[in-house]
């Protein structure tokens, strides 16, 4: 009887250790955010992008391609008017050819920070990525960085990035390589 009680105590102790295991180990088990279907390293990837602010919804096309170790891309509106070009690495995001209406330092800083997070989240050298908390529930992968940024993968066609500080929501819907839209 004594041994049963002692064993039970040990069992309870080890069980509680399992329950309070740091989330870090869950991170190691969750997959990369960008799957090969969602973002192919070997070719250009096109997405429908919607940027929602508290007062407006802006739509366009987001194109990205890996060139010489950098993710390079462009955001244009449907008519082909360029909003901006960008290059990202784990260290930095550079914005180029920014449309004059948004060529303000505070807007560019926000875009650069958000685009870098979006593109480099799986890069082991991206310091913000390693500090983010990943969770995987109901087939939705969520990455939360200090409740400032949140990134969700709903499927291999749709992802969403939220800048919680400024209430900006970026929704990406994949346009397939055969140039047919996959989802509305």
């Amino acid at each position: 009887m004594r041994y049963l009680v002692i064993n039970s105590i040990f069992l309870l102790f080890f069980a509680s250790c399992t329950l309070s295991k740091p989330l870090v180990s869950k991170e190691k088990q969750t997959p990369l955010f960008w799957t090969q279907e969602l973002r192919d390293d070997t070719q250009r990837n096109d997405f429908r992008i919607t940027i929602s602010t508290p007062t407006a919804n802006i739509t366009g096309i987001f194109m990205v391609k890996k060139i010489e170790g950098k993710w390079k891309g462009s955001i244009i509106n449907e008519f082909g008017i360029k909003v901006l070009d960008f290059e990202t690495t784990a260290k930095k995001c550079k914005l180029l050819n920014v449309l004059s209406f948004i060529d303000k330092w505070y807007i560019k800083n926000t875009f650069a920070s958000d685009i870098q997070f979006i593109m480099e989240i799986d890069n082991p050298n991206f310091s913000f990525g390693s500090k983010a908390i990943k969770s995987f529930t109901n087939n939705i992968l969520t990455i939360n960085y200090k409740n400032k940024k949140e990134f969700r993968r709903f499927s291999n066609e749709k992802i969403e990035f939220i800048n919680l500080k400024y209430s900006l929501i970026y929704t990406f819907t994949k346009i397939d390589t055969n140039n047919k839209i996959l989802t509305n």
Partner: protein
Amino acid sequence: MNHFIIKLVSLSFCLSLLAVNAQIPAGFKPATETQQKEMMQKISEVSTHLKTLRCDFLQKKTISILADEMIAEGKMFFKQKDKLRWEYTKPFQYEFVMNGSQLMTIAGDIKNIIDVNSNNAFREICKIIISGINGSGILDSSRFSAKFFVGTNENRVTIVPKQKELKQMFKEMSICFSKINYAVNSVEITETNGDKTVIEMKNQQINKELNDEIFSNK
């Protein structure tokens, strides 16, 4: 010393000639004054007599940072004087509908309705789009400076914007007109960084009946 100066002047002259020639599009030559007047007259006549236009379009956009281009297709409907429906069908669906002072864009579930009269930039964009369809407005010297070129099957007008809102969006726009009926065959927009968007109009149906329902914002 004199020999050196002569060489320097000759070289400068040759370089300036090269620079001027580089501005002349391939397959075209600058219009003479007579040809220019004739083109202006034809453009003005056609834009006045164009009541409706329906066509397919093919849009190619260079993305120099990706060393690539994006191709899109769609349909366009125009009814004089300010009704336009620009509908992308491939690879994405997007509608831009102008009906008088109301502008509506539909991208999937997202519909935006804008009063063009309250937004200067949008007003200018709408005018530019109409200009690209029927050539109207491009001869307005207060808004654009224009250069005229003559080709074998087409004539071409290149306009450079003077207004700040348009200068911020593009460097110049070239419209190619058929020599037969002065219909707009293509529009080429060059951005400030050199990237180009070329829109080719195909299967044009001119002055056929068009139901106003097409331009409704419902």
